[in-house]
């Protein structure tokens, strides 16, 4: 491995050095070994959708200009891209489906592990979905809401319920261009059909279906996941916690949850506080049981319970390398297969739990919502029993940890700004209108070893804060900000421009608001809808001085998110371009012409400072279009 530092995070670099000395391979090494990566793949011009090929188009024009079937680079790139959308949308939506399932069995009393903690949200959903609430038990209401949500997945015609939350103008655009998703699953299936050999060959038409499936994610699967999780696990509200590898404890049983679905991680919180197991831990010589998280499942239990964060996507192996993790349990999404081999070097037990996600040579304890608590306890017990096997000489816990405030939701903003009696978004709208805030930007997405770990997230975030841009964040980007101390209220004084500082001081909030896991980007959509309803900033999301960015993205889920963000009217800057650059016209469409259709487009910009410039220009242009004053404390 090269000597160059891989991360801006000292804890990460410390463990990386350790890995180097011990000649332990990590994602960073495997990335270096993989270079140079396949150029055809990067440009999106290879196709293996049938076995006449695989085909690849010569980007320099010297070789084949179409595939064997005659597909052009644009067609191939479009097909590949929307298949990424399909995979991403499927991942979020399957997550949403699992939560709906959990709510359903909880309402039927088939599980003891869950209760309805978000009654108010449930009642609001019931009203929205036309479920009767009068003189009915909360379980009956929950049952009907769960069933209605379930139906959204298999629905064959009509419109997804939650698309009606979007501003009227946005809904009209969707209708006009046939973007309104009919059913969550249906749109994903249709992508697979259209991209089959010899079906849809017009890249614009292919993208149309990509948009439709992506909207089925953002305003469907993801939104259902978020809303029903709030119903089951309770509404998050601001909460303090600690992040980074330093949260692991030398003298306690360390359990790290990793993956995405809180159906498991939330119940682990309960199980890890079990008296009997705590007693057992003491018997084994541990002072307690320390639960920590990685990736989005960590965000979920962070928001609702203040459970500490061990790290984000590129730190999952590093957690094991600290030698202090007694058990890492994983469910779905973003879990590296490499964990299995790595764990063999340490005492760490990796346990897979989802029937959808198994790993060779990894112990599988299948999770079922019906038996949630006993299974969770069983896993905690495994961790406790593994504690004595910890090899003291291999334990290296970095000191680095950082405090944070997480747990902001679209609903909480009302209380945050107006309290119980004046619940309102007005101060936020006023802040933008007056020019104290230039606008707001959602910085989200993954880590990617192509970019120095967390660097692009933080550089972009800091650059925008300085320009009086309020940042909201989810997923691994949120965790990057957490570790860097951007999620504490004190960060406003240190990083924010004067206008943003004034707002943070008035409200008492950090300049970067942690809004949850990657499915919770749906929360950001709702914030924007609420801002529009409050008034004074236009009629459609595309009127607002807002933008999105995923500076270090890597997952197909990010492609789906990017698509639904842009299709909702949000300018989105990606740090790594989509693998489509081999198709000139599709690239041109996505980064330019798409704006004529949905009022927003993608930008590709790896340099976070340049990305910040692009975004600031965009925000200023939107401000001008709204005839807002220039920013109050502008240059």
């Amino acid at each position, binding site marked *: 491995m090269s000597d160059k530092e891989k991360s801006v995070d000292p804890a990460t670099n410390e463990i990386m050095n350790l890995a180097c000395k011990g000649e332990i391979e990590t994602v960073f090494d495997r990335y270096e070994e993989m270079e140079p990566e396949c150029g055809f793949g990067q440009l999106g011009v290879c196709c293996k959708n049938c076995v006449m090929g695989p085909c690849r188009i010569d980007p320099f024009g010297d070789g084949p200009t179409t595939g064997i079937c005659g597909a052009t680079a644009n067609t191939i790139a479009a097909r590949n891209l929307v298949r990424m959308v399909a995979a991403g949308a499927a991942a979020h939506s399957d997550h949403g489906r699992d939560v709906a399932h959990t709510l359903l069995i909880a309402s039927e009393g088939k599980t003891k592990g869950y209760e309805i903690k978000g009654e108010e949200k449930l009642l609001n959903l019931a009203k929205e979905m036309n479920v009767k609430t009068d003189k009915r038990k909360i379980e009956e209401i929950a049952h009907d809401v769960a069933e209605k949500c379930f139906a959204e997945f298999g629905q064959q015609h009509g419109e997804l319920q939650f698309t009606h939350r979007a501003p009227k103008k946005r809904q009209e655009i969707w209708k006009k261009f046939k973007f309104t998703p009919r059913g969550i699953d249906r749109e994903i299936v249709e992508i697979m059909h259209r991209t089959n050999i010899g079906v849809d060959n017009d890249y614009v038409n292919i993208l149309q279906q990509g948009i439709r499936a992506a909207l089925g994610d953002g305003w469907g699967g993801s939104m259902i996941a978020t809303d029903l999780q709030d119903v089951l696990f309770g509404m998050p509200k601001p909460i303090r916690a600690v992040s980074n590898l330093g949260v692991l404890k030398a003298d306690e049983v360390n359990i790290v949850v990793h993956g995405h679905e809180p159906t498991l991680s939330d119940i682990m919180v309960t199980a890890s506080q079990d008296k009997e197991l705590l007693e057992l831990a003491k018997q084994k010589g541990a002072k307690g049981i320390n639960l920590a998280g990685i990736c989005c499942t960590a965000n979920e239990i962070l928001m609702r319970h203040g459970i500490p964060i061990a790290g984000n996507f590129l730190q999952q192996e590093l957690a094991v390398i600290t030698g202090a993790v007694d058990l890492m349990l994983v469910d779905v999404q973003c879990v590296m297969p490499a964990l299995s081999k790595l764990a063999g070097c340490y005492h760490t037990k990796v346990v897979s739990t989802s029937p959808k996600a198994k790993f060779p040579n990894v112990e599988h304890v299948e999770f079922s919502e019906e038996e949630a608590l006993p299974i969770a306890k069983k896993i905690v017990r495994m961790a406790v029993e593994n504690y004595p096997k910890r090899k003291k000489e291999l334990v290296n816990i970095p000191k680095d940890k950082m405090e944070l*405030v997480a747990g902001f939701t679209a609903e909480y903003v009302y209380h*945050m700004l107006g*309290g119980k*009696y*004046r619940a*309102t978004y007005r101060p936020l709208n006023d802040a933008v209108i007056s020019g104290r805030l230039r606008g707001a930007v959602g910085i989200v997405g993954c880590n990617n070893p192509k970019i120095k770990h967390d660097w692009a997230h933080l550089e972009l975030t800091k650059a925008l804060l300085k320009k009086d841009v309020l940042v909201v964040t989810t997923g691994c980007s949120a965790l990057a900000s957490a570790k860097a101390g951007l999620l504490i*209220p004190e960060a406003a004084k240190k990083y924010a421009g004067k206008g943003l500082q004034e707002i943070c001081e008035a*409200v*008492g909030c950090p300049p970067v608001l942690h809004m949850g896991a990657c499915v919770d980007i749906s929360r950001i959509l709702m914030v924007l809808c609420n801002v529009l309803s409050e008034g004074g900033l236009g009629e459609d999301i595309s009127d607002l001085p807002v933008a999105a960015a995923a500076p270090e993205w890597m997952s197909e889920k990010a492609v789906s998110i990017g698509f639904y963000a842009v299709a909702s009217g949000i300018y989105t800057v990606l740090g790594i371009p989509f693998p489509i650059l081999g198709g000139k016209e599709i690239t041109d469409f996505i980064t330019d012409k798409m704006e004529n259709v949905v009022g927003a487009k993608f930008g590709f910009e790896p340099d976070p400072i340049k990305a910040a410039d692009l975004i600031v220009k965009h925000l200023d242009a939107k401000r001008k279009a709204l005839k807002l004053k220039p920013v109050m404390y502008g240059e």
Partner: protein
Amino acid sequence: MSKIVAAAVNRGSIKIVKEAEDFLNKAISEKSESQKIEFPDTAFFFPMAYALLGAEVKTLGDIKPVLQEAKSLLHDAPTESIWLPYLGDTLDSGIATLLAEEIIVGLRYLYKQEPQADCIGFFSDTILRQLGIQLVDGRMPGFAAILGAAPDNKIAVDIVREFQKRQILTFVGSQTNGRSIIDQLKEENVEMGWDNYIVPYGRDTITGIYPLHWAIRGALTFGGHRKGEALKCLKYCKDRVFAFGLTLGFIDDVKYATGAGAIDMGFPIIADTDIPEIRPTGICTYEHLVKELDYKKIVPVCIETRGVKVKVSEIPIPVPYSAAFEGERVRREQTYVEFGGKYTTAFEYVTTKSADEITDGKIEVVGPEIDDAKEGSALPIGIYIEVAGRKMQKEFESIVERQVHTFLNEAKGIFHMGQRDMIWVRISKEAKTKGFKIKHLGVILHARIHEIFGAIIDKAQIHIYTKQEEVDKLLPTSRETFKFRDERIGAMTDESVDTFYSCTLCQSFAPNHLCIVKPERLGLCGAYNWLDCKASYEVNPTGPNQPVLKGTVMDEKRGEWEGINNWVKSKSNSALERFHGYSIMTYPETSCGCFECIGAIVPEANGFMVVNREYSGMTPLGMTFSTLAGSVGGGNQTPGFMGFGRLYITSKKFIAADGGLKRIVWMPKELKEALADKIKTRAQEEGIPDFLDKIADETIATDTEKLLEFLQKVNHPALTMDPLM
């Protein structure tokens, strides 16, 4: 909300809620939970709790859930580091403080500890309604609540004078280091009271609740919002009640906590001390918490922060001029010279001339000037105003003339009463000392006529006669005109015109309310008749009085016209569909809250009672005017109940569809006497000459049983009329 402020509010709210809890426990243990408790003269119980929680506090036991809510709104103080968002929590603490303060002053009333010496204490519903018109017509553009004490008496006086000058109603109270602005003003002999626009509420911050829970009643009375509609009531205050707080001296925790409550109502706080400001906007219209250390600038800063719209007329006279001085009296011992009253002949008169007959701005005094008069003497006066204008009409003369009263009264040290040939004017010694001359009366009139009637009057000249023979010479002509005017207005009927006038003056307070002013039915406030509205429309063609074509007659008896219905629907934001101009029982016209009288059905008597605003006693319905007003106002149609102007009672169209005058079974004695002559005339026309004596009053009955007994005894016509219901 800066963290320091949030922490102070947090401490203050906890302290006050605890104080309320201790006081309540003491009261319950000394008395009982069923002990009755109330503020004087209000239909809104504990108004803040009523508006925000929908609670009707009648007994000590009823306070418990209110206190419980206040306690639930308290929260942890923001931490030293890694604090959680505090703005929302702090606003909640503010509300907790207001609820608790209301409980405390309520309990003080129970123990007769309020009102404090020299203070008004609880502001009654009557005051709220009396000020109604002024709230609406902009004569009172804003409200200041001062808490604390100024560094010295002079600054205290200067500040309130600055507010007075701008017609801003100023509530004074609380204290700083044991000193209250109330005493500062008292020591400087500043006249206080509603008429002077300076109202002392109490000497501690807790009594700061009085102006606040007075303001929230505006949302219920004029805004048409219902009890428990907290957000609507608070936003109404923010959007419509231009109040703000001004703290003088150190701001302690309780002041901060009370201020947070005020901010939740949209009322910003301005401080004269070096406090952390909260400039971002959103809960208030503009900044929330602002400091201004320079006393010369502090009043303009207040006005700017709240967005109060002030119109100051600069009139070149040697005494201050403002609506705030309108209610000021000049007592005998303060008077230098007086005119009219029972002492001399006096009149005022406006007449139209052609433009070339008038030199605009010409003001002459014919007869002795003030320097020629002896101190304490009386002179005759004839205020003879000639006006001209392309749009001026004969019928506007009375409207301009009627304003002379207001115009002259608004000068400090000048007192005016009455109208036409029944006027009484005094000029104070103080004004004389400052150089005020009789001629200045003309200066005022000239300036104000141009300001107010600029759209119809191009030129005005004023002669002031103080010589007996001149006054005597002109008096008969003016009397002729007065008589002519009465006959002209009296002769007009609803049928004689094809156009009525709308009045939406009060929509800024009651968004769905509008008056349809007809020749035979004046506005319910009593201040605007059909001619006034016509003039007002001429003056301001896009203003609140618009001509409305009657259109097709749909129901002559009930007074329903197609054109009126269409207008009503569109101007009430579709809240109303139809108006019956002559009925209380079907689609009655709505009320804003400014009505002079309320007509209400007395089912047992098969008739209506009428109660006027000034009457604070009980009526046969078991409700006072205040209580009744709660259900009549707000722009709602409530069959059986209606607000109207006094003069409507003697109109031929008075509830004609319901049987007219004959249906009146009860009215307060004072009203009966005031209208006696007119009622007698109308009764003659109706063929019941002895009708006046058949109307009961409070000396006869204040319950239905006694009322019926009386009606039967006098054989009241309502008893044998068609059933009302």
